[in-house]
């Protein structure tokens, strides 16, 4: 029941957020660095930022459940780690894709070779692809859970790295940085917050669905084992 409410709310919020972004309700800054190129490309920002932050949160969940798995050795933590890693990878990929589409319009190129923000985001994506590869490379469930939990902890370095990349390398990045002094910021805020809510809930819903899937898989395996199939 609770899940149904969550899924419905997610669907509604995603639709509302798309409407807000494209309805002309949300403002487009005209004078900032972010509005380079076709001003309409700014609309991507409303998706891009919430998706990126959702990916970070999903990876943080991988980290937390990996730690909890190693402490308690309960399989549920492993399932949570796997599910949020998969969703996180998809969100990280979407961040890269949406950013590249924006960059083509704003900078004239999909990818700028040496930009810390871009590269650390790519690295983050690669780290969690590697996480999924670790999972694939082990057959025994207990060992797979244990080894991937270790990698889930080690790989978390990518999240603060990507998040703080601009401050860590005092090299100039051309990636826009949050600047709360926009005159338009207040009017941006509503659309942005709705988008944040929509994509957080979307990530949460996807993780929950994946967890359910994994549980069903366990049950099927259990039945197969009992029946000797």
């Amino acid at each position: 029941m609770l899940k149904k409410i969550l899924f419905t709310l997610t669907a509604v919020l995603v639709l509302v957020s798309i409407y807000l972004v494209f309805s002309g309700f949300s403002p487009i800054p005209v004078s900032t660095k972010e509005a380079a190129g076709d001003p309409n490309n700014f609309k991507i920002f409303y998706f891009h930022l919430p998706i990126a932050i959702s990916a970070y949160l999903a990876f943080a969940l991988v980290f937390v459940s990996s730690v909890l798995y190693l402490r308690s050795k309960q399989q549920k933590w492993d399932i949570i780690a796997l599910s949020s890693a998969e969703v996180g990878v998809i969100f990280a990929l979407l961040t890269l894709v949406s950013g590249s589409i924006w960059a083509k319009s704003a900078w004239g190129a999909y990818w700028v070779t040496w930009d810390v923000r871009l590269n650390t985001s790519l690295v983050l994506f690669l780290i969690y692809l590697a996480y999924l590869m670790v999972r694939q490379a082990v057959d025994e469930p207990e060992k797979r859970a244990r080894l991937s939990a270790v990698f889930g902890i080690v790989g978390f370095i990518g999240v603060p790295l990507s998040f703080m990349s601009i401050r860590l390398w005092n090299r100039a990045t051309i990636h826009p940085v949050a600047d709360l002094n926009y005159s338009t910021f207040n009017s941006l805020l509503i659309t942005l917050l709705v988008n944040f809510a929509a994509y957080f809930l979307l990530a949460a819903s996807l993780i929950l669905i994946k967890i359910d899937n994994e549980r069903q898989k366990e049950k099927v395996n259990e039945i197969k084992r009992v029946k000797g199939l």
Partner: protein
Amino acid sequence: MKFLEIARKDLKAEFRTKQMLNSMMIFALLVIVIFSFAFGNEASIFIPALNRKITDLLAPGMLWIAFTFAGMLGLSRSFGGEKEEGCLEGLKLCPVDRADIYNGKVLSNAVLMFLMEIIAIPIFAVLFSYDIKNIPGLAVVAILGTFGFIFVGTLLSALTVNTRTRELLLPVILFPVLIPVILPAVTATGAMLSSGDIPDIAGELQILAVYDIIFFVVAQLVFEYTIED
């Protein structure tokens, strides 16, 4: 101090045959030679706009490619060798803390890496007729970078030894996690090779030191789970 015994055992076994050390050195040498063939005379062309030779731009990346690729050979055998004849079980039966096994391995891997680097850097200087400006500074960068490489590499080497694909998996999962250490190491090495004073690379050294500390501590905590049964 028990980890010294484990490192001593590893190095003793290694220096009996010198198998690993020889392959690492020859591999690093080959990487440098291939670069010197590939870039040939163009490497010494001077670019007035940058006030640098092409070698200055290529050298740091080339050195770290040589170090990490050659180091990878050593890392994959570090625990791979222990798999034979049940050595790992013997090691686990030693009356030492699990973290000491890790520290011992780190020490022996680091010794091999440093030996390889001490040979590789002069060979590079000779082949590219390169005049290294700040040798102590380069040593500091190499030591911090190598320890970062070894701390993560040894942990992930122990992790992959229990997986199906073993040596194949190690580079795939290690390189993404290593990028935060390779990037500042390459930048700092470039500065040390061509101009440099230590204060110029304070930021890079900080990142390297923080990375080393984080992974040293994390590895102490999670290493036992990688070799547990």
